[in-house]
C-alpha cells in the first residue's frame, strides 16, 4: 500500500511543501489529488465541501491542477492550443485564443509566442505553458511535482517567482521537491510523509533542513549512519581514464582506492548510472579504458566486469538486481557458480545451501529459509540478497546505484553499516545517490556530474546541499 494515512491541509494563498523520501507516498498522494487514482478510504474537501475525483477531469473541474514532472503537453500542437486543449469550441476563434494565451503567459512574467510549437520550447517554457493552462482553468489548487528538477538555476528562480505570484493571487500551492534548501526558501508550511503516513505538518520558519530530514527518515541523522568504522585508504583499485560515450558521458577520469567510499552526486539523468554501467561492462564506452589494480581493461560485457572483480548493485533492483521468483540461494550464487558446481555442471546443492546460509547469517537477512523466493522478502532484505551476490562473487570494487531506494529506515542503517564494513575490509566502493544526506553521511569524497560531465568534487568540509547543487546545475 503506497498511501496509508495521509492528511494534508492546504490554505489558500500558501505554498505547502510535501516532503518525503522516494517511496514515501508523495506521488500517490499527488495522483489522488489530481484524480488519477481513487482513494480506498478518506476524502478530499475543497472549502469544506467534500469532493470525489474519479478521473483527472473531475479534479480539473473542481479547480485542482497537477503539474507533472513528465509534462502532459501535446508536443506537436501550439502553445495556445495546449493551453485550451479539451475546451476548444467547434469553431475556433484563433486570434482570440492566442490573445488570451498571451495574456496568461505574460501574467507569469514570461514571453512565449502562443503560436510556437511546444516541442520547440525549452523545458522551462514548457512548464510555464502547463502553469498557464492551470491558470486558464481557474485552478484554486496547483500541485507541482519536482518542478525545478530539470530547470537551470536561472529558470528555477523564475519559476519560484511565478509560484510566489500564484500565492499572492490566493492560489493554494502544493510543492513537491527533493531540494530542501529551495523548499525552505519558498514554502510557508511543510508536511512530511513517511511510509505513506503524514508524520507532521510544520511551519517552515520553525524547522530546519536537518529537522525535516530526520522526520523523513524517522530517526536522528547521527543514528541513521551509525558509527563509522576506522578505515585505511590503500592502493588504487580502480582508475578510470577518459571514459565516455557520446550523448551520455563526456570523457572523464578519476581514481578510487581500497578502503574508500566515493560518492556520485547530481540530478537524475546526469549520467551517473550510464557511467557506472560502462565501468562495469553493462554498456559499452566509446572512448577511454579502465584499470583495475593496475591492469588495463576494456569492459565489453558484465562478464568481463565480474571477472575483473567488479560488482554492480543496480538502480532498479527488481528489474536488474534479482530474480524475484527464484530462491535466495540461486540469486546469491549466480555471479560465481564455480564453487557450487560439480563436474558436468551439476549443482552442489548442499554446498550452495551452506554458503548462502552463512552469508545470510552474516548479513542478518530476515528470511525463513534461503530456499524461499526473493519476492517473499522486504525491499531492504532483497537489497541484502544483491549485496550477498557480490560478497559471494568476491568483488573487490563494488558499485552501489541508489542502494537504499525503497528500503525502510532500519534496513538502511544496516546497509550503510555493511557498506562501511566492506570498505574497512579493503574493498573499494562507489555510491550513487539522489539523497544528498546519504552521500554526505557515507562518502569520503563526492564527485558531481551534470549532463554527463564531471563538474567537480566535494570534500567532507565542503559538504552542503548548496555546494552540491551549484555543481549539479548550470
Amino acid at each position, binding site marked *: 500500500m503506497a498511501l496509508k494515512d495521509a492528511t494534508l491541509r492546504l490554505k489558500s494563498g500558501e505554498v505547502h511543501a510535501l516532503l518525503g523520501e522516494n517511496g514515501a507516498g508523495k506521488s500517490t498522494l499527488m495522483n489522488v489529488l489530481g484524480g488519477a487514482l481513487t482513494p480506498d478510504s478518506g476524502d478530499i474537501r475543497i472549502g469544506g465541501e467534500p469532493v470525489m475525483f474519479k478521473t483527472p477531469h473531475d479534479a480539473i473541474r473542481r479547480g485542482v491542477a497537477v503539474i507533472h514532472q513528465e509534462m502532459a503537453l501535446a508536443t506537436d500542437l501550439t502553445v495556445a492550443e495546449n493551453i485550451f486543449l479539451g475546451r476548444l469550441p467547434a469553431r475556433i476563434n484563433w486570434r482570440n485564443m492566442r490573445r488570451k494565451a498571451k495574456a496568461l503567459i505574460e501574467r507569469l512574467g514570461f514571453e512565449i509566442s502562443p503560436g510556437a510549437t511546444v516541442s520547440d520550447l525549452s523545458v522551462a517554457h514548457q512548464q510555464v505553458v502547463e502553469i498557464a493552462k492551470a491558470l486558464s482553468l481557474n485552478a484554486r489548487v496547483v500541485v507541482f511535482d519536482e518542478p525545478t528538477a530539470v530547470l537551470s538555476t536561472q529558470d528555477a528562480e523564475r519559476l519560484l517567482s511565478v509560484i510566489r505570484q500564484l500565492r499572492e493571487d490566493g492560489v493554494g500551492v502544493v510543492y513537491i521537491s527533493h531540494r530542501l534548501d529551495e523548499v525552505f526558501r519558498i514554502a510557508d508550511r511543510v508536511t512530511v510523509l513517511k511510509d505513506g503516513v503524514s508524520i507532521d505538518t510544520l511551519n517552515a520558519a520553525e524547522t530546519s533542513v536537518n529537522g525535516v530530514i530526520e522526520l523523513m527518515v524517522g530517526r536522528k541523522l547521527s543514528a541513521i549512519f551509525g558509527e563509522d568504522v576506522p578505515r585505511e585508504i590503500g592502493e588504487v583499485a580502480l582508475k578510470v581514464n577518459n571514459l565516455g560515450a557520446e550523448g551520455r558521458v563526456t570523457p572523464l577520469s578519476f581514481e578510487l582506492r581500497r578502503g574508500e567510499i566515493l560518492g556520485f552526486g547530481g540530478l537524475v539523468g546526469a549520467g551517473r548510472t550510464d557511467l557506472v554501467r560502462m565501468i*562495469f561492462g*553493462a554498456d559499452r564506452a566509446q572512448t577511454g579504458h579502465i584499470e583495475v589494480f593496475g591492469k588495463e581493461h576494456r569492459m565489453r*560485457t*558484465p*562478464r568481463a*566486469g*565480474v*571477472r575483473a572483480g567488479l560488482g*554492480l548493485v*543496480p538502480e532498479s533492483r527488481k*528489474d*536488474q*538486481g*534479482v*530474480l*524475484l*521468483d*527464484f530462491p535466495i540461494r*540461486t540469486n546469491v550464487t*549466480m*555471479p560465481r*557458480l564455480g564453487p557450487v*558446481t560439480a563436474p*558436468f*555442471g*551439476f*549443482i552442489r546443492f548442499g554446498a550452495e545451501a551452506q554458503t548462502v546460509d552463512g552469508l545470510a547469517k552474516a548479513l542478518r537477512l*530476515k528470511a*525463513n529459509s534461503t530456499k524461499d523466493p526473493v519476492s*517473499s*522478502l*522486504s525491499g531492504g*532484505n532483497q537489497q541484502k540478497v544483491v549485496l550477498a*551476490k557480490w560478497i559471494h*562473487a568476491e568483488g573487490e570494487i563494488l558499485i552501489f546505484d541508489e542502494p537504499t531506494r525503497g528500503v525502510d529506515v532500519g534496513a538502511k542503517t544496516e546497509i550503510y553499516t555493511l557498506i562501511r564494513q566492506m570498505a574497512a575490509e579493503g574493498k573499494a566502493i562507489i555510491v550513487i545517490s539522489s539523497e544528498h544526506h546519504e552521500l554526505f553521511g557515507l562518502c569520503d569524497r563526492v564527485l558531481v556530474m551534470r549532463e554527463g560531465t564531471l563538474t567537480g568534487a566535494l570534500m567532507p568540509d565542503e559538504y552542503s546541499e548548496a555546494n552540491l547543487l551549484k555543481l549539479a546545475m548550470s
Partner: protein
Amino acid sequence: MSTNSPALKLPSMGSMINTYGTVLILIVLLIVAQAMSDVFLTQRNMFNILRQVTATGLMSIGMLLVILTRGIDLSVGSVAALGSVASATFVADMSPVMGVAATIGLGGLCGLASGILVGFLRLPPFVTTLAIMTIARGAALIMSQGQPIRMGADGASITAFGSGFWLGVPLPVILLIAAFVVAAIVLTFTRFGRLVKAIGSNEDAVRLSGINVQFYIISVYVISGMLAAAAGIVSTTRTGIGSANIGVGAELDAIAAVVIGGASLMGGRGNAINTFIGVFILGIIANLMNLAGVPGFYQQVFKGGIIIAAMLLQYGSTLVKR
C-alpha cells in the same frame, strides 16, 4: 513483509490447479478414455500412443528449453522434415552412425542460425524462426527434389530401430523416455538448466550477474534444432522413407504440449516431466478420436478445442482473479 506463519498457509484451489493441472487433465482423460473404449488401457495401445508422439515429444523438449528462455522455435517441424530427408540421403552414402550424426549436426546448424540471429542480433524469435522454418522446408524439398526418398536395403540398419523392441518396449519409445529423463535431470540439477530458466525469468539480472546470456540462448536453439532433426530421423526409421512433407504444423503440437505442461510462454517457468505429460495428453486425444472413429478433418477441430480447454484449466485460475 507478510507476518503470517507460512506453516499455517494452506495452498489455495488456484495454486493446486496451477501445480497439478497437467496431471489432473491426464487423469480426467484416462478416466474418460477407459470408459469410452476397453482397448484403450492395454499395453499395446499405450506403446502405440507413445510411438506416435515420439517425434512431437523430441521436438517439445527443445521447444521447452527455448520457451524457458522466453523464446519460441517455429522451425522444428521443417527441420524435422530436413532431418528426415537428410537421414535417408546420408544413410545411403555413409555408415548409419555417420549419417545419423551428420543429420543431427545439420539440425544443429539450423538451430545455430536461429540462435545467432536471436541471441547476438537480438531479432525477435517468432519471426526469425519463422524464416528458418521456410528455409529448412525449402532445403528439404531441394535435397529430395520433391520426391520421397526410399532407403531400400541401405536403410535396413536404421529402420530396424524404428520397428525394434527392447524388453518388449519399442525402441523409439525408449529413446523418447530417455530424452525426457535427461532433460529433467539437466533442468533440475545442473547449472545449464538453472541459467536457462533464470534467463527467461529476468534476462537483464542474469546478464548483470556476469553470465554469458548469449551462449545459453544460442545453445537452446541449437539443441532444439538437433532434437528436431532427431525427430525427423525417428520418422524415417518408422516408415523407411525420407520425406520433405512431414512435420507440417508439428511446431504447434510441440508448443501445445509445452503449454499444456504448464510452462509459461513468458519464460522462466516449466519442467520436463509436465511437458512429457503434455505430449502424452496430445497423443491420447488423437488416439481416442481414432478409437472413436472421428473422421480426420473433425479431429483437428476437436484437438484445438481440447487444447483450449486444457489451457483454460491451467491459466483460468489466474485469469479469473484479475
